[in-house]
């Protein structure tokens, strides 16, 4: 039970500790590695527990849901938390070798932990308002990280990033407010139950659109994606990698959560809109990338196009498509964060992110070239790497759902992705080093800190590709839970078969327990009972 809170608590405590040791960078570095390592361990433990025992639920402060705030880990939430742990740990180690002295001194590590706490909180909360709060926590941390160093380009990117994300948060808050006004609860399980009892679902679909727009902005889906390529190439590369791996995926996760649990009243409308969004997201992202000649900008545009595949899985809304979507998220976070880390090493070796200034990396550092090739080919969907299976499952689901046009788009985008990756390969790795570009050598220790995380994540990409079955099973487990919201409701609030709504039953149970508060409980029971009559169909 406690395990579900640890992935939030560990980074929070680590962040507080590194603030407390503000003066000592060495202490902060140790806390960063140990803290993110513990985070990874706790999330893996959580995932194993969820896999074997089902949902892990905790009512914070012993205030029972739907009145108190609950933390809920289902397979999807636990998978996302593990991915956050992996990315956080890899980036923390990488930061030791890549982060400038000035950045470390101005609070890089505390912000890193705070960001991870926010991300894990968003993945594990079972309360829609609490989701908003965690998203804000991670946004505040990301604002700080984005402008760390204070260069002109960073400020420019940050303004677009902040502005768009604030609009998105505002829409989200409006949506949460409207949902609360309609249903009188913020607990997602209780909401799902109450929405399933409503006959006239028009208003719910209207509110669903607010959530769709808000989370689509956060996920950088078409048409409001332009904040991402405008900002992700500006901060220090470790920050870019962290953002690329995790931030947009919070939006994707939230879409998966609300559009499988809460807003399934009018799938024909909502999920068709998502499908069109997915198609355009894929296409515009990959075309944008084709026009770029800066390492990190190309990768940023590819984040956008890959988001399209993930929400395509959600939009098709069949069990296989959801499996594909979840599989894609797992594959993508590792691959994309890794590519950014590789770009950072290229930058350190050649002093630039511009493809024109890069070159000769295959000759001077063949290991790095191989380490680039694994995630790059995986991103493009080459067998037997992880991206191939991710794309294969999704495309297969689309064929089964007879949405042939999206199949065409997905395959075309895969081809164009390959084009982009080959472009980076020929320019940065194969081409001879341009004249006048200094070649920088890495000292041994620093080399280990930079290459270690890249190797680890490349290895994971290989494992997901060559040993896909267990990963597929995991995705299947999560899809089964997503397709059947009653599992979620029952895990959080108990069995709804008793005929009472979750909140009524809770009060009923409390009254029956015959505690000292029994009189109060009965009074509330009466009040709540009256309230419910108005809503009963």
């Amino acid at each position, binding site marked *: *039970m406690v395990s579900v809170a640890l992935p939030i*608590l560990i980074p929070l*405590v680590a962040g*507080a*500790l*590194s*603030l*407390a040791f503000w003066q000592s960078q060495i202490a902060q570095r140790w806390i960063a590695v140990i803290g993110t390592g513990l985070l990874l361990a706790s999330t893996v433990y959580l995932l194993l527990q969820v896999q074997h025992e089902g949902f892990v639920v*905790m009512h914070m*402060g012993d205030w029972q849901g739907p009145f108190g705030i609950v933390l809920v880990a289902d397979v999807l939430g636990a998978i996302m938390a593990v991915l956050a742990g992996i990315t956080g740990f890899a980036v923390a180690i990488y930061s030791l070798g890549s982060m400038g002295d000035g950045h470390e001194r101005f609070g890089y590590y505390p912000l890193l932990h705070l960001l991870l706490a926010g991300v894990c909180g968003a993945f594990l909360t079972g309360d829609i308002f609490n989701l908003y709060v965690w998203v804000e926590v991670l946004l505040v941390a990301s604002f700080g990280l984005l402008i760390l160093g204070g260069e002109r380009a960073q400020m420019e990117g940050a303004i677009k990033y902040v502005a768009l994300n604030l609009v998105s948060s505002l829409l989200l808050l409006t949506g949460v407010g409207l949902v609360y006004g309609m249903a009188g609860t913020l607990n997602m399980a209780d909401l799902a139950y109450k929405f399933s009892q409503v006959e006239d679902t028009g208003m719910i679909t209207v509110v669903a659109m607010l959530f769709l727009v808000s989370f689509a902005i956060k996920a950088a889906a078409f048409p409001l994606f332009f904040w991402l390529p405008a900002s992700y190439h500006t901060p220090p590369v470790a920050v870019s990698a962290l953002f690329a791996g995790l931030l947009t995926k919070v939006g994707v996760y939230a879409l998966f959560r609300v559009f499988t649990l809460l807003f399934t009243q009018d799938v024909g409308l909502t999920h068709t809109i998502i499908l069109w969004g997915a198609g355009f997201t894929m296409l515009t992202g990959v075309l944008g990338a084709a026009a770029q000649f800066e390492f990190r900008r190309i990768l940023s545009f590819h984040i956008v196009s890959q988001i399209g595949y993930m929400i395509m899985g959600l939009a098709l809304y069949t069990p296989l498509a959801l499996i594909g979507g979840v599989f894609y998220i797992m594959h993508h976070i590792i691959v994309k964060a890794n590519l950014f880390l590789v770009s950072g090493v290229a930058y350190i070796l050649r002093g630039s992110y511009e493809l024109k200034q890069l070159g000769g990396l295959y000759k001077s550092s063949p290991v790095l070239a191989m380490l680039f090739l694994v995630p790059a080919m995986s991103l493009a969907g080459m067998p037997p790497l992880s991206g191939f299976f991710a794309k294969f499952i999704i495309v297969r689901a689309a064929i089964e759902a007879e949405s042939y046009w999206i199949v065409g788009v997905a395959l075309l985008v895969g081809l164009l992705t390959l084009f982009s990756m080959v472009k980076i390969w020929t320019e940065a790795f194969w081409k001879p080093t341009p004249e006048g570009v200094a070649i920088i050598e890495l000292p041994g220790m620093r080399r280990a800190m930079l290459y270690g995380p890249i190797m680890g994540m490349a290895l994971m990409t290989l494992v997901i590709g060559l040993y896909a079955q267990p990963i597929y099973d995991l995705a299947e487990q999560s899809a089964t839970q997503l397709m059947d919201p009653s599992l979620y409701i029952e895990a959080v609030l108990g069995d709804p078969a008793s005929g009472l709504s979750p909140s009524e039953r809770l009060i009923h149970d409390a009254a029956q327990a015959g505690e000292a508060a029994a009189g109060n409980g009965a009074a509330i029971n009466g009040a709540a009972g009256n309230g419910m009559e108005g809503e009963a169909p």
Partner: protein
Amino acid sequence: MMEGSLILRTAARFLMPLLLTFSIFMLLRGHDQPGGGFIAGLIAAMAFALYVFAFDVPTTRRILRVDPRGMLGWGLLIAALSGVISAMLGQPFFTSQWWPIQLPVLGELKLSTPLFFDIGVYLVVLGTVMTIVLTLAEAEE
């Protein structure tokens, strides 16, 4: 920074202990009556901010004794750990634990995890506001 007037400096010397005492009072009465860590932290920050205006930044840093950013970190740590105590007792995080004790003259003191949480919040608020105020004041110099 400009030197404050004689009136302000004299007043600050008198107001400072009053404000700090009042902030502790607000902190301790917090969980049953209006008050609490947040508002108490703001009042304490006000006391130090007043000192910045009346005197100067180095003096204020000296009487604050600790780095406000460190204070922020320790506060956050105390607040987070106050939720962990209940988990060690096998209850969900942040379940309140109460240990009321009778003090000879002052009456009952409700020692509890919400109080620790409030103390954490107090330090976080004081640390945050002082970081902002001192940074701005230094930038002005």
